[in-house]
């Protein structure tokens, strides 16, 4: 049976569903912890995209858990096997907890390559087919602290049949049993934790079956797959997520894959989710945008100006109507800008000498102005990605800190209003 030093200590459970607490005992020596609701650090190949350790460490209070993805790592299996000391050391990471997921949430993979015995991941060199044996061999070479069991998550297209959904649940359970068996027989993976994967597409009964069956296995936590942005509308996602979390044991963490928009995160926390992946700030960065939504619910006006950040201004175009459009019509297009960000490529920022977000304490906002980042974007300079990634990472993780504060102080509703309607309270600019 898997390590099980990971321990979820809940300090509050609101309305029987919304959970606030700390995930303790992480890492090989068990000294790390992660507050929930929380977010993993998105590092597909051991690196936060665009950032070196110097630039990364300008950020304070980052989560201690880094998410790496097998889709990025699989093609380097031979190298890691020769290296022998695991991916953490290979990537020059020292003091971090390593969680290994199957896919890269920011790089959805093509469908049609899954079989009864295999799933495929897509790296820079193309497709790599994984059997459980290969999957487990990879985990032994990666040596994560915690990994997601192999899963068939190919149910997110809108026309997936009931039969296909049922098959994905069955296969995923079979993969899990095989993974657990191999795991228990492996000395290398002693003390490493396994998350079982809940599938079930958009079919409630399958979701419940998957959750119940997975919960029977000796797993340390759960990944909720196939609910990602673009796969279904938010109402259905919330309905399914709530139904699933109801079936899961209270003392184990639930990680929701592929959901990152702040509004969706808030709803999913209410539906009982503990953990998210932070690929969203990366996507925002890639489209040349800066997160600017407000999450400041501090009643103290003196504090309001400093931390946490507040958005200075949202522009005429970023109205609630626009949000509707972004939120609903463009569900399938994750490259589309959302109402939580400003597009710094826009000409209006050309001579805007303010920081990206007033009061933001990130390296970018302390040192640079919108006009400069705009210039870097229009001239295709690499520093644009660096500075935006710093800001967006800081802003996003700051949002999670605010979320936990709100839960601790019974202010989740206020936070939701602020996040969703921030542009109205700040419109005066």
């Amino acid at each position, binding site marked *: 049976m898997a390590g099980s030093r990971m321990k979820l200590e809940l300090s509050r459970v609101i309305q029987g569903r919304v959970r606030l607490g700390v995930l303790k005992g992480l890492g090989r020596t068990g000294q790390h912890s992660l507050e929930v609701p929380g977010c993993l650090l998105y590092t597909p190949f051991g690196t936060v995209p665009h950032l070196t350790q110097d630039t990364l460490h300008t950020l304070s209070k980052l989560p201690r858990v880094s998410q790496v993805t097998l889709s990025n790592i699989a093609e380097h299996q031979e190298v890691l096997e020769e290296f022998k000391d695991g991916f953490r050391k290979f990537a020059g990471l020292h003091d971090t907890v390593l969680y290994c997921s199957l896919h890269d949430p920011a790089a959805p993979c093509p469908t049609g390559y899954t079989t009864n015995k295999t799933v495929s991941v897509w790296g820079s060199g193309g497709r790599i087919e994984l059997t459980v044996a290969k999957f487990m061999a990879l985990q032994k070479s990666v040596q994560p602290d915690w990994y997601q069991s192999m899963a068939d998550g190919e149910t997110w297209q809108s026309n997936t049949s009931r039969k296909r959904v049922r098959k994905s649940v069955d296969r995923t359970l079979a993969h899990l049993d095989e993974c657990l068996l191999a795991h228990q027989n492996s000395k290398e993976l002693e003390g490493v934790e396994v998350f079982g994967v809940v599938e079930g597409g958009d079919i409630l009964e399958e979701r419940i079956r998957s959750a119940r069956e997975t919960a029977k296995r000796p797993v340390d936590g759960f990944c909720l797959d196939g609910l990602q942005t673009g796969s279904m509308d938010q109402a259905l996602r919330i309905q399914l997520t709530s139904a699933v979390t109801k079936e899961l044991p209270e003392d184990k963490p639930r990680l929701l894959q592929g959901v990152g928009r702040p509004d969706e995160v808030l709803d999913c926390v209410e539906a009982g989710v503990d953990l998210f992946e932070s690929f969203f700030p990366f996507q925002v960065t890639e489209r040349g945008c800066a997160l600017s939504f407000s999450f400041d619910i501090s009643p103290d006006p003196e504090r309001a100006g400093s931390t946490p950040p507040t958005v200075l201004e949202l522009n005429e175009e970023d109205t609630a109507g626009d949000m509707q459009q972004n939120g609903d019509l463009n569900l399938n297009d994750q490259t589309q800008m959302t109402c939580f960000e400003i597009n710094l490529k826009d000409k209006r920022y050309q001579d805007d*000498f303010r920081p990206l977000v007033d009061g933001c304490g990130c390296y970018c906002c302390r040192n640079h102005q919108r006009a400069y980042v705009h210039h870097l974007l229009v001239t295709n300079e690499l520093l644009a990605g660096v500075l935006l990634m710093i800001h967006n990472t800081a802003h996003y993780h700051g949002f999670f800190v605010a979320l936990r504060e709100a839960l601790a102080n019974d202010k989740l509703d206020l936070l939701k209003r602020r996040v969703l309607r921030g542009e109205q309270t700040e419109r005066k600019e």
Partner: protein
Amino acid sequence: MAATVECGSDSNAAVNNMSLKKALKAASPLTLRIVAECPVTKARACDLMLPHCTVSTPVFMPVGTQGTLKGITVDQLEGLGCQICLGNTYHLGMRPGSDLIERANGLHGFMNWKRNLLTDSGGFQMVSLVELSEVTEEGVKFKSPYDGKEILLSPEKSISIQNSLGSDIMMQLDDVVSSTVTGPRVEEAMHRSIRWLDRCIAANKNPDKQNLFAIIQGGLNADLRKACLDEMTKRDVPGFAIGGLSGGEEKDDFWRMVTLSTDHLPREKPRYLMGVGYAVDLVVCVALGCDMFDCVFPTRTARFGSALVPWGSLQVKHKQYAKDFQPIDPDCQCPTCKRHSRAYLHALFKSDTAAMHHITIHNIAYQLNLMRSVRQSIVEGRFPEFIRTFMKRMFPSRDQYPSWAVDALASINITLE
């Protein structure tokens, strides 16, 4: 160790070297203090005091073309010990434009760089990047690649833009001809560059804050170079650049023009050899008496995965490094080498721009460390020995030493065994 000599035009010691009238007129914001001179070669180690900080020479100046050093933050650049870097007037004048940069408190404010900046005149890009450029006495005419509008870059315009940028060192607009061109065009360009220098000096609105450097032209013709040197050194500019080289000419011609120039440039003013950045060229040209260098090579080559090392370069993307778990250079103390292996960087190159940033940081560290070691050896009076060790490390055997380097070094009393 050589005695320390103050050579700045605003120091009392300098008054001995020139007429009082000249000294009073030239209160330039630059002081050159010669810390040591090599007793064998023409090399010197100086402290170049500029408005934003003191620069230890010999110095390599990384190029931040568009107000940024490719993917590196200003804090990282400062952390590597960089005291001066370049911005390109042509690029910045086009985008975002000098008005905007002026409103952002100059290029320093715009990019938030606290140390020194040097800007070029824009003339070189004009000739190298832009089609349809026409050089007349008035200036360089070209079509904007962004809107097709005809633009005239005159000496006055170049200085006006550079005044807006607020660089610590500005370069005169010169008439650049390719170093492989011969004939009357070279002579014309040389004379025109002298006339343009006078117009640039007259156009400088901030002589108390911004240093204007002259650029020695004359192609590969020793007589023309000499004539240009004679004429330009009559002007009281704060420093001199050696221009028109490093453009594909024979290395034998190159070093002869460099050494001719340093022979006739005033000792008390800084000498900047433009466009030179290969390690061997740097070491040889320091020996020939140059103080400052710039080149896009170290940062550009980094983005293609080429890491600079004491034995040449290492192509991180090559397959042979996929399972090489050593750092790029085990002796290098840069942030990249302290944390990452060749194998990790090799793999990261397939998925993330951060791989380029890692190599860029390493290459800048390499260039700056090389120049620090050169300086240290000059200060400690062992520069000739440094050159020999450096060459031995760079080339597998004596017969692979480039003959131009051997000749150039022999001309200043360095024989390589």
